[in-house]
């Protein structure tokens, strides 16, 4: 069964006279990594925002496990079903790393008994030790913030993980580590991982590569 299905999705920004996305059709399944490539401004991030439930499409429908996203409580969907790794991290900067994770767990209604230990373990998995986790986000490097962003996206054990240029701000070593995590998420934990990227290195780990051109999503290749 497809985890996520896009049917004839179109999107137009308010006040714009041109569709950013038009007739987008795609199917995304669990256990696979998908990358979406395209020029800047092609609509990649917009597509991710629609998939993430941060915005609603102008036309068409996005179906998550047989249910139209429009019929779902999008707040609940974001809190429980999908994890988003933002290019610019979008963390609570005046909170610590661990507080970011704990808050995300609380919002999703995570029933873990020892939430703090679970959060530390999650951070450790993405290469953040306790000392770093207890520091304010503002005092962390870009790489560390990105890892915390990844940990936060995974904190509520979502079915879908989407990442917008997850390695755009990272050095090559950190980039490799992040890609390992994403690969493991799809192949070992059965998540559906969708990555928007410009990076060839990121594309190289994908099971399927899609491209956006002139507002249309086109299948490019299998890995």
């Amino acid at each position: 069964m497809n985890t996520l299905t896009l049917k004839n999705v179109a999107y137009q920004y308010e006040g714009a006279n041109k569709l950013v996305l038009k007739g987008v059709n795609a199917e995304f399944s669990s256990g696979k990594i998908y990358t979406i490539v395209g020029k800047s401004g092609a609509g990649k991030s917009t597509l991710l925002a629609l998939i993430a439930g941060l915005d609603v499409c102008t036309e068409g429908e996005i179906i998550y496990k047989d249910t139209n996203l429009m019929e779902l409580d999008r707040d609940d969907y974001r809190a429980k079903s999908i994890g988003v790794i933002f290019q610019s991290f979008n963390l609570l900067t005046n909170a610590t790393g661990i507080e970011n994770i704990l808050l995300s767990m609380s919002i999703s209604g995570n029933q873990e008994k020892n939430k703090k230990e679970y959060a530390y373990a999650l951070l450790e998995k993405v290469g953040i030790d306790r000392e770093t986790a207890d520091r304010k986000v503002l005092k962390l490097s870009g790489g560390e913030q990105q890892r915390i962003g990844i940990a936060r996206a995974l904190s509520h054990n979502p079915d879908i993980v989407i990442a917008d240029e997850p390695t755009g701000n990272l050095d090559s070593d950190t980039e490799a580590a992040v890609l390992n995590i994403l690969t493991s998420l799809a192949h070992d934990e059965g998540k559906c991982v969708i990555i928007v990227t410009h990076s060839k290195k990121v594309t190289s780990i994908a099971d399927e590569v899609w491209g956006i051109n002139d507002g249309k999503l086109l299948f490019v290749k299998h890995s």
Partner: protein
Amino acid sequence: MYIFVNALKNIGRNKGRNILIGTIILVLITVSIVSLCINNTTRSIIDDYKSRFGSEVTIAPDMTKAMSMTDIMSGERPTIKRITSQQYLDFAKSQYLKESVITAVTGVAGDGIKAVDEDNNSNVVGGAVFSVSGSSSSSDSEDYVMPTMNLIGNKWDEFNDGFRKLIDGEMPINENECIISKDLADLNSLKVGDKIKLKSSIISIENNEQTVKTKYVELEITGIYFDAAEEYTSQFKISSLNRRNEILTTIDTMFKNFGNIMGITAKYYLKNPSMLKDFEAELRAQGLDEYYLVSTDEAGYQKVVGPVEGLKKISLTFMIIVLIFGAVILVLLSSIAVRERKYEIGVLRAMGMKKKKVALGLWSEMLIITAICLIIGFGVGSLAAQPVCDTLLSGQIESAKAAAQQSGMQFGIALGGPMKNELVPLEQVDISVGTDTIIEIAVIALLLASLASIAAISKVTEYEPIKILMERN
């Protein structure tokens, strides 16, 4: 729960902004506490005085009106019709009264008993008889009996005040029962159960002829009282003015034996001071002469409570002004603060936090800040209330004094009225923090917190997470 925990952490995370907001709230709460303490304390004082001054009705001849109606040419003056005993009793039945006390008194002389200090009377011999001069006496007229004692009906208040105490027997209940002072009892070797004979002259004028009749009454002593007050209240030491010679009996005994020949003092207490007009109309309908003035002691009330009322108004006005200005500043500050927090709200919304929970979080933060300010404000406000009150009150008293002097009136003298030197303005108000103050300040604090949050909450509902995050990016 996590909303509250996160709100608590957020307060620490944004110290600078929250200290600023907290300072404004603290000032507002402190001012409100001071004002409400003053307001509530003065309100209870005013209510108390209002009920005391405003509810006791005085019925007295309106001399100003009577004099103004005097014919200058002929010198003819209007006759003020006396209020009869029956009228006093009828007035007491009014529905507007919560209480009435009618006291009757008549001068008497003992028939076989002597009054205390009777022998000291220089000009008067107890029980002595005199012919009445002036009008011609009718043939069956008796000699006038000079009173040496007072027979008083329904005068029990001094037993409650502690000046008098029943030391033997019991209070009179039935007609023709009485109690006497220990001094009078000792002087005449009287005890409970004994009977005493009293006499009083009744003067009537018919066809320009005076008739004096002697009225005899026999009363049974049911009790003996001890009187702790001074015997005389004036320098005239004649026996009829001696308190020890007061024979106390029931009002029924007085009405039965002395009817219209006794002096009556009536005190009427209104259920509410505002009922004065209705009560007066009722009295007029029952035949009260137009030359009687029906009033409460409004001047006395104003003199005593005026400065406190001024203090109450000032404190309340000050609080309202400060609250309005403070609330405006708070809303502006809160709007600016939430703009700074737009990104944070966007992140929370992107993480799936519902709008109402974000709003609840912001409200919780404001409530926590307000609660902290409330605790500090209570301490500061309670300490500051008394000195602030003293300062304001002294200013009010000075103003009132100046105003009184300007209008040619000294304190303690009412315009057109008697000297009332005992009426001095309240110079001390003991401020206390009552339950009503606590409830009111809690409501004000809650409103302040909510008002400050509304600005933030309204912004939250405007923001879509994607827009906030895109702006940020």
